[in-house]
């Protein structure tokens, strides 16, 4: 199984809860033996999307910004069957560390329109039977932030081609062991490696 892990935690030390969740996801991925590309986004040079749509017209499938680290992400995404997003929940959405990479992901889509569940969306350039796992962290439980986060992940799943999505939220002082246990139970990860 090929997986891409977007580690959207702030730099180490700034958000221990989010960094702990990242460690838990890494441990479960390792236990499953999946071929994983993990991207520590806070440490990567990813420039802001210019909104030029060159990746759909002038250089189809390829971003015109070439002097940063985004291309490795596009390359990994094109072959991934499992996508994992991890982020501190920020105003009910993703932190900028994660969002800067997602803003630049549109080369993996085609410009044309299709209908999914009665709405308009873009087709995938690299169609695969994907699944999405989004892991959010909150310093304290907050139903409003969690609800907005779950809604956002649902919309992302639709835009990824109506993929099956799982959303997990860790809050408060959740321990590494507890996080690993909850993650391991998710059907997203399948059965444990023997």
């Amino acid at each position, binding site marked *: 199984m090929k997986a891409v892990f977007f580690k959207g935690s702030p730099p180490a030390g700034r958000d221990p809860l989010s960094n702990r969740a990242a460690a838990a996801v890494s441990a479960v991925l390792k236990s499953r033996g999946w071929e994983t590309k993990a991207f520590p986004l806070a440490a990567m040079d990813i420039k*802001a999307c210019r909104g030029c749509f060159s990746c759909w017209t*002038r*250089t189809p499938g390829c971003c015109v910004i070439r002097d940063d680290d985004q291309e490795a992400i596009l390359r990994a995404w094109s*072959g991934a069957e499992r996508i994992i997003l991890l982020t501190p929940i920020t105003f009910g959405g993703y932190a900028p560390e994660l969002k800067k990479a997602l803003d630049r992901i549109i080369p993996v889509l085609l410009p044309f329109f299709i209908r999914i569940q009665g709405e*308009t969306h873009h087709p995938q*350039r690299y169609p695969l039977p994907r699944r999405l796992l989004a892991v959010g962290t909150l310093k304290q439980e907050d139903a*409003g932030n969690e609800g907005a986060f779950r809604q956002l992940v649902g919309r992302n799943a639709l835009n990824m081609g109506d993929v099956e999505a799982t959303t997990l939220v860790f809050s408060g002082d959740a321990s590494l062991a507890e996080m690993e246990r909850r993650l391991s139970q998710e059907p997203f990860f399948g059965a444990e490696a023997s």
Partner: protein
Amino acid sequence: MNSRKVLLLVASPRGAASTSKSLGEHLLAVLEERGMALKTLQLYPALGDERKMSELLGAVDLCDLLVLAFPLYVDQLPAPLIDLLRLVAERRNGQARTGQALAAIVNCGFPETAHCRPAADIVRLFSAQAGFRFLGCLATGMGGAIGNRPLGKAGAIVRHQRRALDRAAAFLCESREIPADVLALMGRAMMPRWFYNFVADRGWKKAAKKYGTANRLFDRHYDGRQET
């Protein structure tokens, strides 16, 4: 005379040539007629520029009404705008001055306005955390039909959006929440969905033809499952 200060913050990488600016400036023109003092700043030129970012943060602190105008990126706000909002909230840390209000204008390229819902939630949650009174998020689909033109030059297709912004201004002037019927008017389709999709699809092909890439639109630059 209303002496309250309005800051329009345009958070589009296309800056002065953006649909976000067109929508925001239409609203501002009406607010100016009602005597409000206006300022417009662009977010993207301030990225990585300490002086401009400091000016921007100062303007956010001083305004009475902050209007965020941005395009929808991957179902929510563009990353640099989230970064800025996080910085604003951290700087305030519960110490915001009272009486500030916030409204937002978001446009997306899909024909359905419903795509913008998460963005509206995010702006509302930011407002609560940073101490702004949230007055509403004016969302519209079919942003591509405006094509970065001033609303006054976009013709009858944007009549609902123009009316919605005009009506919203009356409420924002008095620091009142934008009513649901005005938000719904802003989200009304500019044209039939099939027609918008037809024109959009044709537009991509036309652009590709111009660049000599018409037969490469479906290219797979990376090697899918062969990638490791």
